[in-house]
């Protein structure tokens, strides 16, 4: 069956692609995230009661636990993507790993920031060499290294291989850093209160905690989708740039050249 002619007689429009990295999926996730964030603020800052031990500062745990959890999830995603890239060698895994690593670094920065602010209120100082914060600092530096390697201009496959290796090497170190720092700093301080979902939390405190945590994870997925698509676009833009350059070269070659190859 032939397509009926367009009423105005014009040719049908060319298929157009999306104008941004959004999609139905991200809009749904985004809406859910916004709802979750609003509820988290309400529960975290207002509805939930102050803690028996921590007082009002428990409200900072509601930001700290989600950021650190997301950071760890992000680095696991990077690790899995790194391994998959070395196995399958497809662009998908490279872009996924790099996107996740960047998000992980952002969330680790937030983790340390929140930890420092919590420390200021509780200990009076912005930093103490307690296990959680110390480990975070080491992990942050390792993954900044990943981003530094990513930033080095190189052939796509070379860069992807390098990053995949850093991703794997770094993730293997995570439990070892934890153990070393815990043994070391655990000698000097008791069990850290910072950043644990204390089973003694009750009622609305638990609600606030799990709500923030779930919201954080939704935000992570939303960010990952967008960031992955951006990374994909960067590669396609680079391809387009390369093709333009090649096309220009071919056009130049079309004109007779003075040099003759031997």
């Amino acid at each position, binding site marked *: 069956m032939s397509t009926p002619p367009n009423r105005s007689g014009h040719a049908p429009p*060319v*298929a*157009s*692609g*999306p*104008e*941004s*990295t*959004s999609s139905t999926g991200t809009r749904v996730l985004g809406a859910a995230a916004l709802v979750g*964030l609003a509820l988290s*603020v309400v529960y*975290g*800052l207002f509805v939930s009661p102050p803690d028996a031990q921590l*007082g*009002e*500062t428990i*409200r*900072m745990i509601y*930001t*700290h636990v989600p*950021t650190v959890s997301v950071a760890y999830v992000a680095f696991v995603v990077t690790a899995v993507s790194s391994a998959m890239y070395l196995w399958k060698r497809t662009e*998908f895994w490279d872009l996924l790993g790099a996107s996740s690593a960047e*998000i992980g670094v*952002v*969330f680790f*920065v*937030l983790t340390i*920031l*929140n930890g420092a*602010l*919590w420390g*200021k*209120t509780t200990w009076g100082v912005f930093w103490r060499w307690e296990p959680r914060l110390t480990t975070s600092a080491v992990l942050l530096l390792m993954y900044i290294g990943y981003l530094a390697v990513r930033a080095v201009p190189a052939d796509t496959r070379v860069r992807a291989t390098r990053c995949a290796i850093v991703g794997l090497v770094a993730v293997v170190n995570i439990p070892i850093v934890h153990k070393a720092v815990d043994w070391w700093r655990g000698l000097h301080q008791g069990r850290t209160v910072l950043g644990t979902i204390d089973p003694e939390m009750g009622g609305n405190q638990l609600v606030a905690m799990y709500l923030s945590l779930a919201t954080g994870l939704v*935000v992570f997925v*939303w*960010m990952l989708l*967008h*960031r*992955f*698509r*951006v990374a*994909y*676009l*960067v590669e*396609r*833009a680079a*391809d*387009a740039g390369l093709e333009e350059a090649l096309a220009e070269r071919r056009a130049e070659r079309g004109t007779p050249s003075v040099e003759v190859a031997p």
Partner: protein
Amino acid sequence: MSTTGYIVLSWVATFAIGGGYALSIVLRGRKLSRAVPPERRRWM
């Protein structure tokens, strides 16, 4: 700064940095989408 001040700062900073990062991704996505031919913009 009081405890309340630090709590507020913690939440505000988290939202500001997280939100700023999110915004930067989305804006970058829009800018790049314009630079790439329509049929090649999405992985799937």
